[in-house]
């Protein structure tokens, strides 16, 4: 009953004209960036942060929620029509979605994707509401040692499930942690890793990391691969709808994808991309039409698209319940909370219920808006792909400059973001994943803080810290994540399963 009352309170907040407008702007922007290749939700939220400085935080987070859900909706459009996924989480959708489009069934692929996203988004928001509330009740019992261990789980998961090479993923995580520790140590007031550069005393903001690593590196990537940018686009023939048979084949896939996506997404560090790959593997295994997979099976679109949307809802569980981000996008959202002087986690549910429940209620509304925007209006979204790419990427650079400068009005930040852009380009070119860097920047200071506070509790005894019952169990989970990719690869090799190898070679965004 308390849950229902809280949700009704949330709807009262979300349904004000101003907040409805922010939700609308969020879903429009989210769908647009989902359609456009190379721009993701983490980057968009980073770029929009300066725009929201003057807003009430409730409105800002309602907009961010819309962007996050919208990006997952929009990503499928380019996967299906161009075979160039707008988001990494839609990569697997292209396998069967593009094949369906080539056979003149683009309308059905887009419909199953949009309705699947709606079903998954709604179920995941219900899951978010229930599980975040349960998590909050438990989270108040957690001390610094347990929080430290949970952050290690997040880092282990994102390290082990990102990229194609274990040492490269580990390096990416360590780089992020190192960048996160630059600046003033808030426990002792000492400067760390600043090398005498005064401008580094304030540290390296995660927003700078996201803009440098995701935006500028993408601009450099576009310029470096200019000659290979040609694309072939399939047209939408007929209505954006499914036959009765396609609909009945889609329903179980939507439900399975929703469950897989939500629970994978709720694990700290595991992303929407991984959820969509697992969903595809499951659909292929349980389908009565196995031979159609790879040639245009509708389940191969319905399941993964539901999974990536549900994962976005799942990601918000550790963020809202524990204050720990599990993906690049939620890491940037955590930074946004901090800019507003808010700390997500158990306390936020009591200190700012209007914000938490307003955000959750707005996610239900965003889903309805997205269904309306994506089913009948998909033809308009496709036209976004006509924007000349040089204009688009030059515009991203200019808006990046504004975003970086307006953060602290500090010219040195522009230098930092340029350097990070070059580093991001080189990492991308040589297969070093970027997601763990962003997560590391956010988690670095939090891990340091909780570890040192935990050590105070155990009088400096590391063993006592690591063997507390709760901490030991959580660290065992971290170990499981570290071993998981090796086990999957060995199993995949032994059984000749290339899809399993692919699972361990994805980018967590």
């Amino acid at each position, binding site marked *: 009953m308390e849950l229902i009352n809280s949700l009704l309170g949330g709807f009262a907040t979300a349904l004000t004209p101003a907040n409805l407008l922010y939700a609308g702007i969020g879903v429009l922007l989210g769908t647009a960036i989902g359609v456009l290749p190379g721009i993701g939700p983490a980057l968009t939220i980073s770029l929009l942060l300066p*725009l929201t400085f003057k807003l009430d935080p409730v409105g800002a987070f309602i907009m961010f929620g819309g962007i996050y859900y919208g990006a997952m909706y929009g990503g499928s459009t380019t996967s299906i029509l161009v075979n160039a996924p707008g988001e990494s989480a839609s990569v697997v959708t292209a396998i069967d979605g593009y094949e369906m489009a080539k056979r003149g069934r683009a309308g059905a692929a887009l419909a199953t994707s949009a309705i699947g996203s709606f079903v998954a988004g709604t179920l995941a928001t219900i899951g978010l509401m229930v599980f975040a509330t349960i998590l909050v009740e438990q989270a108040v019992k957690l001390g610094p040692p347990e929080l430290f261990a949970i952050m290690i789980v997040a880092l282990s998961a994102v390290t082990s499930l990102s990229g194609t*090479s274990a040492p490269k993923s580990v390096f990416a995580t360590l780089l992020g942690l190192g960048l996160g520790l630059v600046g003033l140590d808030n426990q*002792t007031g000492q400067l760390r890793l600043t090398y005498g550069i005064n401008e580094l005393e304030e540290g390296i903001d995660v927003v700078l990391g996201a803009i440098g690593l995701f935006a500028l590196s993408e601009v450099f990537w576009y*310029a470096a691969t200019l000659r290979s940018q040609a694309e072939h686009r399939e047209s939408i023939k007929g209505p954006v709808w499914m036959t009765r048979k396609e609909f009945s084949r889609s329903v179980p896939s939507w439900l399975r994808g929703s469950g897989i996506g939500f629970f994978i997404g709720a694990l700290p560090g595991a992303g929407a991309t991984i959820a969509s790959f697992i969903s595809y593997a499951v659909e292929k295994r349980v389908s009565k039409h196995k031979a159609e997979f790879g040639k245009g099976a509708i389940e191969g679109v319905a399941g993964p698209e539901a999974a990536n949307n549900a994962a976005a809802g799942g990601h918000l569980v550790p963020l809202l319940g524990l204050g720990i981000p599990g993906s690049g996008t939620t890491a940037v959202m955590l930074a946004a909370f901090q800019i507003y002087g808010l700390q997500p986690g158990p306390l936020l549910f009591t200190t700012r219920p209007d914000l938490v429940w307003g955000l959750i209620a707005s996610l239900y509304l965003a889903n309805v808006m997205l269904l309306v925007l994506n089913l009948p209006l998909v033809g308009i979204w496709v036209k976004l792909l006509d924007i000349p790419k040089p204009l688009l990427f030059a515009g991203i650079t200019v808006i990046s400059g504004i975003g970086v400068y307006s953060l602290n009005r500090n010219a040195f930040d*522009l230098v930092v973001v340029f350097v990070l852009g070059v580093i991001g380009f080189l990492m991308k*070119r040589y297969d070093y994943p970027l997601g763990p860097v962003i997560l590391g920047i956010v988690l670095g200071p939090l891990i340091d803080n909780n570890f040192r506070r935990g050590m105070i509790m155990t009088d*400096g005894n590391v063993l006592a810290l690591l063997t507390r019952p709760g901490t030991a169990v959580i660290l065992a989970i971290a170990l499981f994540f570290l071993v998981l990719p090796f086990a999957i690869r060995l199993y995949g090799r032994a059984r000749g399963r290339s899809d399993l190898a692919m699972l361990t070679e994805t980018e967590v965004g």
Partner: protein
Amino acid sequence: MTSRNPDLVGAALVAVLALVTIAGGVTTPDPGFGVVSPAVLPTIIGVLMLVTAAWLAVDALRGTPPPVTEPIDRRPFGYTVVATAAFLFAFVPLGFIISATAFLIAQARILGSHDLLRDSIASLLFIAGLYLLFVQGLTIALPKGPLPF
């Protein structure tokens, strides 16, 4: 040719970064209060980076195939990096309007456009629109440079 393996070059760069991090860690002053010195975590990160560099090198030397890289379109890439650097470095001294308009015109040319007049007008209009949105609409101050606004 292992000497040109990008993963070996990467391992060397990671090792250098590891040493820089360790140096930064061990030179962090310990104020003497608290159970764990602020130097500990940066030093651990640096040491783990060094281990990772060795891991990368061993992987490369044991024959793990290097990443498949497409040849870079050197001209547009090089000019884009230079133009971006120039834009970001000139953002404050020249102001937003001048630096961003010049960058957009240059970038359009770098990426294949040949209509200077059209690009100039479009760039100026786009930047003016952004300026109005941020400065007038959202009251976010952007650097003016030599211009009076």
